[in-house]
């Protein structure tokens, strides 16, 4: 397995999209680098949705192997690799809980527990690039700035895999209220993340 050891000297400087390009040439080092960058992210996301460490491990294996086999499933024009990877992971994990109809699908928790679902601003993944660490700080701050009831519905939808109607049933709130909370919450998140998209003026 010597040939697959990470070689940060060569690959650390390449961005994700360039690493993905190299997968077309079956470059194991590029694959290894992608895993060392995002293995924790895929695992954390899977685990949050399925809430079963064995199942989450299997999903990490499956998701990365699929990337290795079919690197062209990522379309660079659609956006950054990490956004794509996060969506693929979330969708795959939600499919899993839906097909198993597991009991541990979102259990309603108190706002205090909700608060803990997302990271404390201090915690960080050493494998993340500086750019990603910046984005992470922004999104954590943006989420903690949301009213608890907006954060809750976003969480139930994205990580709990529930539809607006299902959320409305669980919370015993009118469907219209749930829809409004989702829209307002997402609008605020987007606005808070917009500085990231601004070009610094020279």
């Amino acid at each position, binding site marked *: 397995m010597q040939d697959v050891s990470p070689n940060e000297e060569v690959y650390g400087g390449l961005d994700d999209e360039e690493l993905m390009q*190299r997968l077309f040439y079956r470059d*194991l080092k590029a694959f290894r680098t992608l895993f060392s960058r995002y293995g924790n992210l895929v695992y954390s996301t899977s685990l949050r949705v399925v809430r079963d460490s064995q199942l989450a491990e299997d999903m990490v294996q499956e998701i990365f192997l699929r990337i290795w086999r079919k690197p062209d499933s990522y379309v660079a024009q659609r956006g950054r690799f990490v956004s794509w990877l996060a969506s693929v992971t979330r969708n795959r994990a939600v499919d899993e809980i839906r097909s198993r109809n597991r009991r541990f699908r979102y259990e309603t928790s108190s706002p205090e527990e909700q608060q803990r679902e997302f990271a404390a601003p201090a915690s960080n993944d050493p494998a993340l690039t500086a750019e990603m660490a910046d984005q992470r700080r922004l999104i954590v701050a943006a989420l903690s700035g949301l009213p608890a009831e907006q954060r809750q519905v976003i969480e139930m939808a994205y990580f709990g895999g529930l539809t607006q109607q299902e959320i409305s049933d669980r919370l015993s709130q009118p469907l219209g209220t749930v829809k409004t909370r989702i829209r307002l919450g997402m609008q605020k998140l987007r606005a808070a993340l917009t500085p990231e998209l601004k070009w610094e003026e020279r």
Partner: protein
Amino acid sequence: MMDCRQVMELLDAYALGATDQGEARAIEGHVADCVRCWEEFSKSQQTAALLALALPIQPVPERVGRRLMEAAAREQPKGRREPRAGLFGRVRLSWPALAAAMSLAGIAALAFATFLQVQMNDLRDDKTALAEQVQNTNTELARQLDTEKQMFAVLSAPDTLKVPLSPVSTAAPVLSASVIYNWSAQSRKGFMLCQDLPPLSGDQVYQVWFTSKGDAHSAGTFRTDDGSCQMAMDLSFLRARPEGLGISVEQAGGSARPTNDWLLYADFTGEQHTTP
């Protein structure tokens, strides 16, 4: 059928995966043909995708990485695989006809992709190999459709600039090449069209770079069989307004930094450029 207002109201819920199947299908159908909603759609998707980043990090157990790398190494084929040239590498459209052709081609591609999707569902389970082929075609079409939409978004922006790239290298084959970059600072999108680029050897690619504050940021690589290219670029990852765009020849797979001189370059900081 949903109209733009109805779609816009559901885009955030869709991005969070919280719409039911009927709504999801209606939204997908609508944004496939509506550039304005498609732009909002992409933004919602990007925002939702960042949510995963906010989770506390759970380190993935070491055995997972070990197993994964072993499995990947076992699947390492003997020969080297060349990336397949996209449809865009093969289809060539003349510039003025392009805008007109785009919407039509988009509809045709979508109709075909939908047809293939139906076929694929029928094939699932017992004929997976065939289904995978169909899926590959679908991905290819989705890629083409995305490129077209991005080009359309650039063309319909109020601040579109059309910038020709000039040959830097004096090598004769480059002098006859024609490369034009269209971009909109407002929509943070651009696309590049080229004709008559010189052929490269098998282990080389063209790599496109944005320059900004003395640094070069890769915008991707491409190969071309007939000297033409159509490449869409999302500029939103750039921290600063780009100062120029260059093309260099790099080893297959691309480089982290340009390792050769510019073949062609456009400077954005100089004179006013024409708007189409």
